[in-house]
């Protein structure tokens, strides 16, 4: 068995450069191309085939060594991030915008952004100055439609360079915190994309029988769209979505959160095939991978939800990386959780044999 990356501290953690490379690229839903190309470059050394589909999903295949027909395992993590989109340019060159995905109006004011016009233009999200507000107004969250982006350009130049429909992302470099934690934008869900890449790196040097598809999906934040169509193409025998889950923090309901730094969460519920859940738990136990169980009543709201009901149905599971302050520019994850997620995925993939897919669907006597 090859050596796995050593536990590192803070900025020295081996996953920091990978996460930096992934999170600092802009990739709002529907405009993931830059991220998709980077993911393809990062995966290339470890896989046998890579393609981008009609919606921009990046679909990589690492062929297994087993006899044909080989079982097909699909690992998926969405690479899109929430963002903003310019709706019109107003007098003075200020940009009005609408959300792309679930943008939290409380966290947008005062953010530095990049406006992806002919070149990425730096901008800032402003509002009516506070000294012009009544105290009642100050107590309320400012609705998105009352905010604007200022790129400092004269009106004429703004109109010429920034057509309505221009995408905008927040600007926030990855910041290493104490220990093995980092903060940044788009860790939802590039942390999982990093885990996917790391898993494929491990798997590349191991013997495995199954065909393993690593898919970086698009447009999850606007409706699980990329997962739906990429799963239709792959038609896997089993599929695992990797996403972030709510990391424990004050004020959150205790039965809805994951502990930070205690390993990936393995989902349990209607969206998860019980056998695949069992395989993940056993894999974690066998390889001493810290993990937690996440009960998920009803919809998981993740790619797994869409993947499960493709064609005649796909056995699905969900692995979650605990993350705090989701859908803001300061999301926090623990890199050890990311590393252990990668190990879990790689070990599971390596353990899938031809016999596994049998029994997912069966005839009754």
């Amino acid at each position, binding site marked *: 068995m090859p050596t796995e990356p050593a536990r590192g501290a803070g900025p020295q953690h081996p996953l920091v450069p990978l996460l930096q490379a992934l999170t600092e690229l802009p990739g709002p839903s529907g405009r993931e191309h830059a991220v998709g190309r980077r993911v393809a470059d990062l995966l290339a050394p470890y896989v046998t085939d890579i393609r981008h589909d009609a919606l921009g999903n990046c679909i990589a295949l690492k062929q297994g060594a087993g006899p044909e027909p080989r079982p097909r395992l699909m690992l998926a993590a969405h690479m899109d991030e929430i963002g903003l989109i310019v709706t019109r340019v107003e007098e003075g060159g200020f940009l009005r915008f609408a959300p792309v995905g679930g943008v939290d109006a409380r966290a947008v004011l005062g953010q530095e952004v990049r406006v992806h016009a002919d070149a990425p233009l730096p901008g800032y999200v402003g509002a009516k100055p506070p000294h012009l507000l009544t105290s009642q107004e100050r107590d309320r969250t400012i609705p998105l439609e009352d905010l604007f982006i200022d790129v400092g350009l004269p009106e004429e130049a703004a109109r010429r360079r920034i057509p309505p429909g221009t995408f905008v992302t927040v600007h926030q470099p990855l910041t290493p915190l104490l220990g093995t934690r980092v903060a940044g934008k788009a860790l939802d869900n590039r942390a999982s994309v990093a885990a996917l890449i790391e898993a494929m790196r491990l798997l590349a040097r191991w013997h495995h029988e199954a065909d393993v598809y690593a898919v970086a999906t698009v447009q999850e934040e606007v409706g699980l769209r990329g997962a739906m169509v990429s799963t239709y193409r792959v038609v896997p025998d089993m599929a695992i979505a990797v996403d972030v889950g709510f990391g424990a923090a004050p004020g959150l*309901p*205790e*039965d*809805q959160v994951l502990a930070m730094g205690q390993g990936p969460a393995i989902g*349990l*519920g*209607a*969206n998860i*095939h019980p056998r695949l859940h069992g395989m993940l738990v056993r894999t974690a136990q066998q390889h001493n991978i810290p993990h937690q*169980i996440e*009960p998920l*009543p*009803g*919809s998981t709201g993740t790619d797994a939800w869409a993947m*499960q*009901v*493709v*064609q*005649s*149905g*796909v*056995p699905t599971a969900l692995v979650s990386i605990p993350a705090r302050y989701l859908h803001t520019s300061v999301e926090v994850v623990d890199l050890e959780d990311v590393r252990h997620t990668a190990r879990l995925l790689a070990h599971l993939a390596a353990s899938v044999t031809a016999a596994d897919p049998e029994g*997912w*669907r*069966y*005839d*009754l006597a």
Partner: protein
Amino acid sequence: MILRELSELPGVSGDEHRVRARLWEAVRDRVDGGRVDALGNLITWKGADRPGPKVMIAAHMDEIGLMITRIDKDGLLRFRKVGGIDDRVLAAKAVRVGPDGIPGVIGLKPIHLLKDNEAKKAVSHEELYIDIGAASKEEAERVVRPGMYATFATAFGELGDGLVKGKAFDDRAGCALLVELLALDFPFPVYGVFTVQEEIGLRGARVAAYDVAPGLALVLEGTTCADTPGTDPHGQSTLLGHGPAITVMDATHIPARPLVDGLVAAAESAGIPWQWKRTTFGGTDAGSIHLTRAGVPAATVSVPCRYIHSPCAFMSLRDFENTRRLLAAFLEDVPRVAERLAQGSA
């Protein structure tokens, strides 16, 4: 009657296997074959190689319920809802927890200790907990794990004038109807499909319909019946005892007109009482079936049930029997209905 057993079995969305096992036992001698798919749907068939349109008849096995999400320090269980449950029906109900059906009750703060106005406010499920009698977290953990399901503990029974009561008539009533229909013989291929995960988004039917690729589909349901005090006549979706309800539109589908006409004609010519379902909210498996592949003509027929999505529903056995008769009469007509469908798309 099999409805008694089906009603009392636990089968929350995602955990339908006990219901599936009982249903397979009930239909295995009536069908040519059966299979279980990746989501847990039970797909059965008879006369698969006969000529004529493949007819898919679907009823969902799952019921609304609860999932245990956390065991508190004192051994009480926190839970979340699975499917659409009105929070206000939860307080002070008996439940069964997990695969072994451990008895529990949903506890709440006693009335004596309530502050002003607190008694008037609906209690959110987040403030409630299940008490299984465990004295500590450790004791509870010996029998319960987060992720386990809980259902209402409601005994099936007869009451009133030909009524029965029980939990999960939505849609074990439909399952029981489908069991009865599969005893009949048809000159065309029939797929009897017992679906999963209807209550959380019509999910089982979607993949089963993709797999079966039917020419037309019928969905059997237990539906709301709001003929009780305080409901305006025009808000009464169906009336108990007035026969099977035929859907004209709901939030998920507009049934194919030739099927609706065929159902009405079958009821009228056989003298079977029937009614329109008179509200348009909610949805059924037909919502996902009719959008499968290049489209499937589909319709929904329901048995009216009072107090649906609550611990206990009422159903009229006469309505059940009339629904069975209507479906049997309609199925005899299927070749003619199929002709009309074909003409419609010429």
